[in-house]
């Protein structure tokens, strides 16, 4: 059994080509140097507050709570951040770190386009070159985000290999990094890939749970009973969970994209349908066939359409600290529409997976219970696709 760096239980590690080893070692050293550096943190916090709009609001969804008739529901409004999703938290941190390392160019993968837009934004702000890899299928599903990235001065490379979705965008970004390392930082968007990415991204996203804890303490004087977030690679989920991991009374629930159902092949629910494997630099759970070929996964959500899950989530699942539940396309779309009508909030279709599960469990819980649902992003980008799903054609 391997015991290399960056392990979460048996998961994690650094399964990458030798060409990239010194790059990740250099990144780890830089991160260790700057993570507690006062200047670095002052600069990052100023950006998070004044540029990204933190802290994000913790909103009591009173109508939804009344309508469901059970637990009190709070929404953590990451959708209100600059660029419209939680992704900016991580990107500002990594871009600052890359600058400190003397890098002048950022590359990134993107699924729904939110991480790509956030990276393009940070690159524009900090005067860095930026190239975003995006599955060709996703460039069609998320055409608006492609335009936004270009508007921000970034190059967008459509990836045509494999299933032309998020996993292929990650593969292509890794290939590009092996081509050009000296001036380039790979700004990975989720808590996945080789060490130290799962740790770095988690740390930058953990601001979400730190704020939830403070804000709920102020409003309710106590901890929540459950925190619910959607999981693809799992960055908004780990950010929402992190400061509650040692609070055993808080249930941590990750919502996976079940696509057309976990009993079909058209699913992306990794914990529910995958098994242990090694891919994209990490040991974790992956959707794969009996010979280890990675499965062509499916979800209506481009951001959750990934055949793996971050290694820390895999570990939290193994030890029973977090629970990972499947949510189908139908349930997510229904929740997308529900939150729009009930609270006047249009969530990202990714986040709608978390809303869908809150709808299921809130009525089963007492009125003295509290659920926090992370709305990881806003849903403007999804409107055209959801309209199509409902048989309506609109021009973007």
């Amino acid at each position, binding site marked *: *059994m*391997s*015991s*290399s*760096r960056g392990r979460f239980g048996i998961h994690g*590690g*650094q*399964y*990458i*080509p*030798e*060409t*990239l*080893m*010194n*790059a990740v070692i250099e990144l780890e050293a830089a991160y260790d140097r700057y993570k507690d550096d006062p200047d670095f943190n002052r600069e990052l916090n100023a950006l998070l507050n004044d540029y990204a709009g933190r802290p994000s609001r913790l909103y009591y969804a009173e109508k939804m709570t009344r309508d469901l008739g059970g637990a009190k529901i709070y929404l953590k409004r990451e959708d209100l951040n600059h660029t419209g999703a939680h992704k900016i938290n991580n990107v500002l941190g990594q871009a600052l770190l890359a600058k400190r390392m003397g890098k002048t160019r950022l590359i990134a993968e993107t699924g729904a386009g939110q991480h790509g837009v956030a990276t393009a934004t940070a690159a524009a702000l900090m005067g860095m070159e930026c190239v975003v890899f995006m599955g060709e299928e996703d460039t069609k599903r998320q055409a608006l985000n492609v335009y936004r990235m270009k508007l921000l001065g970034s190059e967008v490379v459509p990836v045509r*290999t*494999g299933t032309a979705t998020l*996993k*292929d965008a990650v*593969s292509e970004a*890794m*290939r590009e990094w*092996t*081509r*050009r*390392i000296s001036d380039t930082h790979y700004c990975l968007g989720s808590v996945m890939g080789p060490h130290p990415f799962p740790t770095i991204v988690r740390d930058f996203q953990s601001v979400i749970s730190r704020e939830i804890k403070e804000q709920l303490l102020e409003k309710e004087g106590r901890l929540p009973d459950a925190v619910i977030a959607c999981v693809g690679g799992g960055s908004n989920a780990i950010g929402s969970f992190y400061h509650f991991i040692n609070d055993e009374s808080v249930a941590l629930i990750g919502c996976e994209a079940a696509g057309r159902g976990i009993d079909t092949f058209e699913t992306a629910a990794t914990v529910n349908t995958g*098994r*242990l*494997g*090694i*891919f*994209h*630099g990490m040991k974790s759970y*992956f959707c*794969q066939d*009996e*010979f*280890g*070929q*990675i499965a062509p996964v499916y979800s209506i959500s481009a951001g959750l359409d990934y055949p793996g899950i971050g290694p820390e989530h895999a570990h939290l699942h193994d030890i029973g600290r977090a629970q990972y539940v499947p949510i189908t396309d139908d349930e997510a779309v229904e929740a997308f529409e529900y939150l729009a009508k009930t609270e006047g909030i249009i969530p990202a279709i990714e986040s709608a997976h978390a809303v869908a599960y809150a709808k299921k469990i809130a009525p089963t819980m007492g009125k003295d219970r509290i659920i926090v649902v992370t709305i990881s992003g806003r849903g403007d980008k999804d409107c055209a696709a959801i309209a199509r799903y409902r048989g309506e054609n609109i021009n973007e």
Partner: protein
Amino acid sequence: MNRIKSAFENGKAFIPFVTCGDPDLETTAKVVRAAAANGADLIELGIPFSDPTAEGPVIQGANIRALSGGVTTDKIFNLVRSLRTDVKIPLAFMTYANVVFSYGAERFISTCREIGIDGLILPDLPFEEREEFLPLCRKYGVALISLIAPTSENRIAMIANEAEGFIYVVSSLGVTGMRNEINTDIGSIVKVIRENTDIPCAVGFGISTPEQAAKMSALSDGAIVGSAIIKIIEKYGRDSAPYVGEYVKSMKEAMLAQK
């Protein structure tokens, strides 16, 4: 420890790579026999993977063709069993960590020994993760091949010190594929390797012409060629064996002519 040493006993070693099952296993068998008959000293047999992150477009294409033709790890094991009735040169598998891990590492590596596979090359298994498979490779006498890259620098000595079989020197940054020029200072990488081990080293990535093979093997103990062979197979399909044989012959001759 196994046959690999013999690959480096006929002058500089020429090491062709072929993706098993591209376009089908019968063609792979013919190509391997043609390469062996025309001077290949060791053959790398690629087990295709759905998402080969270290490969350029040419070998990615071969992986897709092979997998869509229905090739599996078990079918490739059977191919090797049948090849081993007459092919005597060393053979190594080139694949990705998940193919080995998912099959069950011990089941995979013990089968390698049983069918006559001498080495295992896993581009996504760096030095730091070698414990994943190294104990089993040692148990079954299969050499776990180490890779050294242009960016390895301070890591070369550490990797060379524990290397087995041969060392795969990655000639260039980036993924596999043909290149017009190789700019890495291979000579100085090999110098550090030689200071740390007696194990032979062969250069791969980007080599396609006899001139490049001669030049790279002059700096090391051999040359590895993948994409250029896959290109021939892509062009001639089921009829590619004689063309690959001819190509292997021209490469080996150019390497032998190099003084």
